[in-house]
């Protein structure tokens, strides 16, 4: 929200016509040569310490191997980075932009793609490390929230909505198996469940999970939200929320800021069930001493939301070559394996391990996924993400209904 933001305004009035140098991802040696000495401003959510630390590590590696400096511009909402690029385009700054790389997916990706703010033509599938990407078995790598990616963003990590609880306090048998049971559980345990306040990404995702479960004709959600039917389709969701807020943490009068904030609340016993979009989040937190080692994961047998998160390059990036090198490095087996280590971050890889060379495969095999991480088989089915317009409309409606307080 507050962070960094108005860099947007940044270029609002200036129309510096910097000429962009042409970059051709097919000529990789040429890209490497151009990238040398460049500084890449990666605009990425900065609210989680292990993610920030991972990017520190990446900066060290990139500097040493390719002479590229990676600067993490810490956002608290990815929309702020989109706002910067939008403002730059409005001001006619079509080159020399302030954002080189954005950590993105869902509505922000859709917004950038629709407004023509992404580097084109699609470059991601010509990166050298694309050969290892598991696009055959992971459909969300090529279709993000129903929007075809078309190589305009490089896959960076996989996400699946997973819940966590402390076995020392909650009996496994009592755990809910779907959104409806979760509400019943919350009513039986008042004040012990909550979700991050939208537009926090994880908070909005929780709303979508409920929406998907409560919608009979799910094909509706694969199409853009329609003003006429929105009220009908979302009615069960808001009826659910009205009941949930009655019994939620702090009676729904305030909400946790984001999912890292929920971890401390679980540790203190303020919340009993929390969730994240990263199946290894709990193991990672246990390794860091943030959660007790009695915390375990669970998921809904009928499925939870799943998606892929990406790295995108704005059309007017200043360091396009450096951004390509960075995206390719972050997609490399080494960077992906390091990222999947719960002691580091725990984010699941986008690569197909069986496509990798022997040595890289061993690196993944050696990973200890942690005591609280479910195996891929236990993660349950993946529910498809609704079209991005649903998230926008729901956030708006949420704000309208629940911001009042007067």
């Amino acid at each position, binding site marked *: 929200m507050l962070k960094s933001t*108005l860099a947007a305004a940044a270029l609002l009035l200036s129309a*510096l016509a910097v000429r962009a140098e042409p970059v051709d991802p097919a000529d990789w040696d040429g890209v490497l040569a151009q990238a040398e000495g460049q500084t890449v401003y990666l605009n990425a959510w900065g609210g989680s310490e292990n993610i920030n*630390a991972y990017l520190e590590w990446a900066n060290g590696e990139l500097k040493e191997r390719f002479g590229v400096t990676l600067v993490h511009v810490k956002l608290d909402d990815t929309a702020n980075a989109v706002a910067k690029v939008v403002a730059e385009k409005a001001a006619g700054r079509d080159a020399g932009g302030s954002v080189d790389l954005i950590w993105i997916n869902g509505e922000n990706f859709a917004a950038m793609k629709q407004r023509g703010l992404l580097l084109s033509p699609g470059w991601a599938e010509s990166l050298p490390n694309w050969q290892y990407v598991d696009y055959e078995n992971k459909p969300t790598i090529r279709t993000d929230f129903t929007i075809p990616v078309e190589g305009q963003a490089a896959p960076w990590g996989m996400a699946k909505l997973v819940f966590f609880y402390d076995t020392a306090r909650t009996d496994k048998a009592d755990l809910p198996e779907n959104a409806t049971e979760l509400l019943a559980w919350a009513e039986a345990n008042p*004040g012990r469940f909550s979700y991050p306040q939208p537009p926090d990404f994880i908070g909005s995702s929780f709303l979508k999970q409920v929406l998907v479960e409560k919608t009979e004709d799910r094909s509706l959600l694969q199409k853009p939200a329609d003003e006429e039917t929105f009220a009908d389709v979302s009615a069960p969701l808001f009826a659910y929320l009205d009941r949930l807020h009655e019994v939620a943490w702090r009676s729904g009068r305030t909400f946790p800021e*984001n999912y890292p904030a929920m971890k401390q609340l679980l540790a*203190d016993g303020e919340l009993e069930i929390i969730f994240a979009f990263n199946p290894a989040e709990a193991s990672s937190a246990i390794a860091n001493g943030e959660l007790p080692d009695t915390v375990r994961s669970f998921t809904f047998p009928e499925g939870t939301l799943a998606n892929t998160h990406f790295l995108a390059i704005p059309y007017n990036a200043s360091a396009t070559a450096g951004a390509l090198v960075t995206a390719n490095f972050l997609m490399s087996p080494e960077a992906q394996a390091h990222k999947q280590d719960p002691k580091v971050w725990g984010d699941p890889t986008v690569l197909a391990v069986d496509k990798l060379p022997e040595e890289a495969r061993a690196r993944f095999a050696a990973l200890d996924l942690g005591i609280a991480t479910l195996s891929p088989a236990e993660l349950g089915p993946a529910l498809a993400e609704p079209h991005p317009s649903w998230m926008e409309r729901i956030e708006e409606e949420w704000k309208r209904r629940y911001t009042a307080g007067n």
Partner: protein
Amino acid sequence: MLTRLGPPLTILLLTGPLLFGLAGTLLPAFGFLPVLGGMELTLRHFEALFDAPAIWASAGISLAAGLVTAAISLLVVMVFVAAWAGTPLFARIQHMVSPLLSLPHAAAAFALAFLIAPSGLLARLISPALTGWHHPPDLLIVHDPMGLAMMAGLVAKEIPFLMLMTLAALPQARAAETRRLTTALGYGRVAGFVYGTWPIVYRQIRLPVFAVIAFATSVVDVAVILGPTRPAPLAVRLVEWMSDPELSLRYLASAGAVLQLAVTGFALASWLALEKLAAALTRRAAGRGRRLRRDALARYAAFMGMLASALAVFAGLAALAVWSFAGLWQFPDVVPQSLTLKSWLRTLPRTAEPLLTTLLVGLAATFIAAVLAILCLMREDETGRRAGQGALALIYLPLVVPQVAFIFGLQFLLIMGDLLATLPALILAHLVFVMPYAYLSLKDPWRAFDKRYDWLAAGLGKSRWQRFFHVRLPMMLRAVLTLLAIGFSVSVGLYLPTVLIGAGRLTTITTEAVALASGGNPRIIGVYAFFQMLLPAAGFAVATLVPALIFRRFHGMRV
């Protein structure tokens, strides 16, 4: 020649950004923003603003925060000084004022949050033994809808500020003599002070009180950490709108900034009315000869208020310090299960860059402010004219106009010059806020300087600058270093100007700390809070130790 430039340069630096900034905010509010195609004058954006959900609730919280914070802080300071001035206890409390004053607002807010939250230190100390709580109670304390936690955080920071201002004003009020007189006439300590001394003191601290009101009505960092969320106070929502990808919201944000100006203006106007009311009540009570001799309750209440605000912040900071070394630390444990250096080892390398920016910007802004303040005061000596009430009001202007209202517009200005997120721009933005404090802290010691030293040196044939560098500056070293320490601590604590002008690329310890607050990891916040404490403290340590070292062989210069 150089001194002649001092006052105009200062006025330009203080009011230039302010006026251009206000213009840059006002024009888009009325529809003028050419890059976005806004060329017509319209009130449409105000209609949209008043349609925004709960906008009046946001404005109401901001208004209440300004008035309540100022009233409580001022009341505590007034009664405390009335009751305890001249006692040993008073002297002891005085020593706690400076460290509290130099602490950034955000750090004090963190400290309070970690003390009073349902899972905070206070609850841990008494649970489960006294409370029976094995879980933290489900109480809405931090982020409460009425903004009480936010007001408490502001009060804890404004009490030391108003206290210091009062202490500076006290000598001119002949408080001790008045006290002897009113005591002899049978008045209670507090009543005697309020009738006899306070009117003289208050006249001098009025501008600082206005600054407190303006700050509290438009604060962003404290509001983010402690304030209500649904809806948030006005200034917080403005900053959110300004960063939305939907660019048309910028008009809304600008219109909101105009509303913010109105809210702050209304708060100040209400305060003027309250002043009149309080003065009338006091006069009536005095006229009727109410002696109010049984004021023990008020005296101890003010003492408790003073002590509580200081202790809360210090205890909270201590809790944060422990958090920064904590492994797993679950409720209701009073101490962590394990201690680890992990948070420090992970975070320290990441603090290097914000630390460097904090130091660079703070030192540069403070140094420029010091030079300008000295030039202005030298010019005063030359012309024999003191800065009047008007000039003083001008100096206070950047502290009384809400930051959001002109920083938005200042951004546009910097963007046009392609200067946003550059070091010089950030230093300029900090200078606007450091300058007033620099001038105000130097003016009294400067005027108190015994001019006969100057005349003596002139008699020995020393030129003006020789007199300045060889006589005046060395003798005033302590005052100048204090100015630098105060200016630096102000710069370290600046949040909104840094976030907006640094645009995410130039970050300081304070902006990093507030950004991390959203992640809610108390270990990391603990590390950053340490630096927020350390930097201003280091400034004051230098200001105390350097003169002591230099003057160790000069008996006349010791304090």
